[in-house]
């Protein structure tokens, strides 16, 4: 059973396109996150949702919009993709804020 799953695993697209990444967790956790891992492997928080409410919104361009339809899902929509958006995006979940987080397998986004 996959605890935190993401789709798609790979995403190759052209500059200017709009794309979405989906995340689902079956751990019953209340809090979900999106991270960006750049080419230097640095993992940085983008957004955090607790019980479907946004609690963290780091300095991320407005082109990125998270949506949480329910506690088990947190999707990431990206408008007008730019070259610099190329990275690996990880979803994670935890029981509460600041507690142990469990990560998905990542979505590798390449913008051409």
């Amino acid at each position, binding site marked *: 059973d996959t605890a935190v799953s993401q789709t798609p695993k790979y995403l190759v697209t052209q500059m200017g396109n709009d794309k979405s990444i989906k995340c689902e967790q079956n751990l019953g956790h209340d809090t979900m996150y999106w991270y960006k891992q750049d080419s230097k492997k640095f993992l940085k928080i983008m957004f955090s949702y607790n019980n479907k409410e946004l609690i963290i919104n780091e300095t991320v361009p407005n082109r990125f919009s998270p949506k949480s339809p329910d506690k088990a899902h947190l999707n990431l929509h990206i408008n007008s993709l730019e070259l610099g958006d190329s990275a690996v995006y990880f979803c994670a979940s935890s029981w509460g804020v600041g507690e142990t*987080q469990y990560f998905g397998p990542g979505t590798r986004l390449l913008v051409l």
Partner: protein
Amino acid sequence: EDQVTQSPEALRLQEGESSSLNCSYTVSGLRGLFWYRQDPGKGPEFLFTLYSAGEEKEKERLKATLTKKESFLHITAPKPEDSATYLCAGGGYSTLTFGKGTMLLVSP
């Protein structure tokens, strides 16, 4: 601003050669210090959480320790399958702040 610094950036060991990875942190209201392992092309895999200075946790060849300013991940008699990037993270009021990781390569 919360900060987590890991050293060294990369470490190459011979199989059986024990060593330690360092994580120094400045995190407001630290709720826990976390260690993760990340294999190439995969998401970080949870290893340990340490909550207070003096605490130690062990798992197979790994032992994590915590002081008020640092955490260490000791690797005893490593094997090639221990090769991975090890990430340290400080849990603050709102989320985890990650270090840049230590890339460990264990040669047979």
